[in-house]
């Protein structure tokens, strides 16, 4: 995912001199193509995240679209107030980019686990969350964000995620992307972020689920909650999947959005990480399994 990100960023920066990249002394092996091509628009803020986010907001206030790249908790929780006050409140074009969404850096320990980041970002009224599920969705999200600069949070996995889409899909905030449609059933999985491939495996390999559809929602926010009830209505059962805690997560967001139409609530089931993974240290697949994201647990 991170390679798709940097390729899209470099391509966009060729045509748009307002695109800047700020990093928090991270991005080895990823950000060099941008730094080499656009040295005047590349800044390493050092290991100083509050200043990093504040200066990104300052740059954005002068017309730049600033991408701020770092790992998991560093460009998010470490400078949460700068995101809230400087970026979100002032509606500035800063895209916070976290690499290592979910438990991608599992072995590096709790400091590097991003399992509460949706909870932080989705309570900011102007923030658009971009949680792509594969490299194609990364490209789609990047193209959307570059054409629609705004306070935004791009949550990337790491590298080597399989492509689920054959081409770059059309994405728009709050809209479910239909990936696999079953004509025989009105039940669907709905994922956001890097759990797309898990959900895809389920509907393509589990015989009991072959009638299930699969949707993803790479772009979502507080502002598009109002669009959800209408889409939920199309299905009799929706199972959300995310590599984030249930508290403050994507499934909870969907459930909240359905509250206006109480009959829809029983249709929604949430599959999210159990909080027991907080503090556990192992590789991503092990931790996801411990947290409940196994094929068995995700079957309904």
């Amino acid at each position, binding site marked *: 995912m991170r390679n798709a990100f940097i390729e899209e960023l470099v391509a966009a920066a060729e045509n748009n001199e307002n695109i800047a990249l700020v990093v928090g002394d991270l991005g080895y092996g990823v950000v060099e193509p941008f730094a080499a091509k656009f040295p005047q628009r590349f800044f390493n803020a050092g290991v100083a995240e509050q200043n990093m986010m504040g200066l990104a907001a*300052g740059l954005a*206030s002068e017309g730049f679209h600033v991408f701020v790249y770092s790992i998991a908790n560093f460009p998010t929780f470490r400078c949460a107030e*700068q995101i809230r006050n*400087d970026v979100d409140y002032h509606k500035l074009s800063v895209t916070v980019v976290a690499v290592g969404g979910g438990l991608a850096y599992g072995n590096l320990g709790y400091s590097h686990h991003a399992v509460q980041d949706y909870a932080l970002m989705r309570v900011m009224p102007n923030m658009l969350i971009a949680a792509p599920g594969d490299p194609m969705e990364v490209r789609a999200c990047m193209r959307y964000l570059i054409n629609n600069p705004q306070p935004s949070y791009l949550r990337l996995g790491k590298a080597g995620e399989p492509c689920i889409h054959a081409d770059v899909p059309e994405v728009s905030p709050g809209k479910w992307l239909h990936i696999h449609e079953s004509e025989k059933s009105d039940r669907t999985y709905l994922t956001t972020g890097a759990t797309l491939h898990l959900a895809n495996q389920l509907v393509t390999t589990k015989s009991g689920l072959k009638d299930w559809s699969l949707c993803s929602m790479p772009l979502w926010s507080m502002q598009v909650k109002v669009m959800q009830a209408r889409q939920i209505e199309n299905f009799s059962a929706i199972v959300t999947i995310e590599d984030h805690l249930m508290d403050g997560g994507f499934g909870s967001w969907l459930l909240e959005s359905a509250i206006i139409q109480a009959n829809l609530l029983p249709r929604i089931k949430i599959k999210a990480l159990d909080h027991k993974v907080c503090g556990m240290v192992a590789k991503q697949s092990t931790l996801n399994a411990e947290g409940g994201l196994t094929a068995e647990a995700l079957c309904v």
Partner: protein
Amino acid sequence: MLFTQLLAQRIRKNALEMVHKAKASHIGSALSIADVLAVLYGQVMHFDPTNPSSETRDRFILSKGHACVAVYSTLAEVGLIPKEKLKTYGDDFSWLMNHISHKVPGVEFSTGALGHGLPFGVGKVLAAKARHTTWRTYVLLSDGEMDEGSNWEALMFAAHHRLSNLTAIIDYNKLQSLNSVANTLGLEPFVDKLKAFGCSVHEVDGHDHQQLYDALSAQADQKPTVIVAHTTKGKGVSFMENKVEWHYKNPNDEQLTKALAELEVVHA
């Protein structure tokens, strides 16, 4: 009387009337910076009162957002906002909220949480540098605010990147919210620390307009400028000077009359 002294006097009077009417806090912090603002807006900064967002304007950021009445007063006195607006300070849904607000023409950035203005200003200077423009960015901070690590991160970055178009002014009135700076988190040796961070440092009497003018007009070669302005919290109103309580209290009718009269006498 010099124009800037007259301006400072009017800033103080407006500020007193605003906090009195709104029963708001932080008058001591506003009186402390009236002279800095008078010299900045009266003599130093470039701006167009008919076009608050003119591309070539110098940028000013009030990082100690709680002292906003002094800035609102200044903006009204120099014609960036109508003077009538000052009367709405602190009203429900007024533009003029009780911390500086970017919704007011001429205000670049909303603050209120300390330690945000300088990093934001650093970003503005980076933008100016990337576009080879010459406007300057001025950031006014409080002394207590220098407890925030983000300011030291920003200074380190500004010095490393040789951001000579940045001037930070620190309102060193020596009082914080509960006690003196020295008894809270001492900053001394303050000037030495700032110099060690790679800044060009000017130490001035923050109520002396000539000293302020000289320092605010200075541009160091390849270094950010930091002005340590020695000030008196509550300056100009005898019973407010150097008193922690005027971080919170607002003057009653009698105190307002007395304060306004003192300002007349001092500058008569």
